């Protein structure tokens, strides 16, 4: 059984800064102007596994990923990866931003996007060589897109674009993967490919942390969850997090049908 993420849960819980934990967060608070987006969030991820970050719109899910990466200014709080502050250059962590964050009309092909995952190893001022593109092609093959490697990325479907992003993250060969809504608005075939690869990464001892919006599918994919609504509502094994009481606290009194079904599935 995986170690629990719920560090507040007592016995078996991990403490902040434990070198064995890929990601631990203490007292994380983020505000945009004077509006708090995350408030005093504690979280400790298990050594490996698939972790979902859940919560309603505006709960601070994406901000949580950006804040642990140091991409948005934090008001307070500490973040440790394997017990240390993150050196973003280290290649320890791979981040997959939301699909909407880039210009898909950009003059670049799928394989060239994937090759960006290798830029660290290539180094400054050195060109991308044929062998790098071959390595990138191999990663595209893993996400089932070898045939579309030379397409301009805007000509791919949303799901295929997401798979290209995932292939780029695979090329980085990191130990911790942070993905922002990789399953939002993609087709069923792409979803299967992405979920299978996330499972494969977790099975290979990587920690995969995913911002996820679809409560119903949580129990089928993830082992652990962090439920947010600005504050931390709950964290730990999915079945313990997705209780009616927790969801009511996160989503408010108007608990929708989807959330209800999620409870049924998780229970």
């Amino acid at each position, binding site marked *: 059984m995986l170690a629990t993420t719920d560090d507040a849960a007592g016995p078996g819980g991990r403490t902040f800064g434990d070198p064995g934990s890929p990601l631990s967060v203490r007292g994380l608070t983020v505000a945009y102007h004077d509006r708090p987006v995350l408030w005093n969030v504690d979280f400790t991820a298990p050594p490996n596994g698939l972790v979902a970050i859940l919560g309603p719109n505006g709960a601070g899910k994406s901000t949580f990923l950006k804040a642990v990466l140091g991409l948005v200014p934090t008001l307070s709080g500490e973040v440790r990866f394997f017990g240390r502050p993150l050196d973003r250059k280290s290649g320890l962590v791979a981040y997959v931003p939301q699909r909407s964050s880039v210009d898909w009309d*950009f003059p670049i092909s799928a394989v060239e996007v994937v090759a960006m995952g290798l830029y660290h190893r290539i180094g400054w001022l050195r060109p991308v060589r044929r062998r790098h593109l071959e390595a990138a092609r191999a990663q595209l093959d893993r996400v089932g897109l070898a045939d579309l490697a030379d397409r301009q990325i805007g000509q791919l479907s949303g799901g295929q674009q997401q798979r290209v992003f995932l292939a780029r993250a695979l090329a980085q060969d990191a130990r911790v993967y942070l993905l922002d809504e990789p399953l939002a608005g993609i087709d069923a075939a792409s979803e299967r490919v992405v979920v299978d690869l996330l499972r494969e990464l977790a099975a290979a001892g990587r920690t995969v942390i995913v911002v996820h919006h679809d409560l119903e599918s949580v129990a089928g994919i993830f082992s652990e969850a962090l439920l947010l609504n600005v504050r931390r509502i709950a964290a730990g094994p999915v079945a313990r997090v997705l209780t009616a009481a927790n969801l009511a606290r996160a989503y408010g009194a108007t608990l929708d049908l989807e959330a209800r079904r999620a409870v049924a599935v998780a229970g």
Partner: protein
Amino acid sequence: METLVAALVLGAGWNSAVATVGAAFLGAAGGVVGTFLLLRRRVMLADAASHATLPGLVLAFLAGLALFGEGRMLPLLLLGAGASAALASLAVQATAATRRIGEDAAIASVLAVFYGAGTLLLSYVQSLPVGGRAGLERFLLGSAAGTLRAEAELVATLALLLLLLALLLGKELRLLCFDPGFAEAHGWSTGRLDLLLIGLLLAFLVIGLQIVGLVLALALLVVPPATARLWTDRLGRMLPLAAVTGALAGWLGAAFSAALPRLPTGPAIVLVAAAFFVASLLLAPRRGVVAVAVRRARLRRALGRGAAAEPQP
């Protein structure tokens, strides 16, 4: 006509030949730097920066006059131009960072203020009873013919170096332009990469100021990349295409202006580049206006016959 042909084939004397080659290298460098500016959506900032060279230029002229009794000292003039363009870039960033007004408004305001101040200073200098002040006006619209031979050689060399530097940084700049969030998350400082890009822009402006002029320098940064974009959807091909288009525009424009004494170089280069752009807009395969119209017409006819292929999901 004869003089034009002579200028085109570099046969109108060594001075004119060097200036023409310098303009071509400058066009190539502008095409490459401009491609990244276009993809990073920094084109308007480039416009503000190029107009903002004027006050620095005139102040440097006055400083030279006061300190050395000679206003037209090229290194000092270019230093002043570069410094005030850098100041304007910083002013845009600082104004936009307050988030009280949009970036476009910040750029327009900074451009107006700097260019206005420059014009004011220029008219003051023109009221002074000193020599060399006519030389300042050349910087507005550029003059390849009026460029000294040694200066033109320097322009050609520096433009070539700038071109190589921009290509060397191609991998990092591509990352910055395509996915700054990814870059920042994995240890590249997008702030520093943006500074680097602005540094390339300032270098281009300073190097090219005499030949293309500050009013139209922007065109050499925008029109060749926009032309190249119509022909390809790969950055790897867009860069050489933009460089070649810019080089041709520089070459032909400088030759035209050498042959027609009253034609400033900047406008000549811009008109040549614009001709390339319009031709590409109409005729480029796939992205060109004609190609799109033909495809639509074919589809409409096929629909009429009931022979159109069902769209693939």
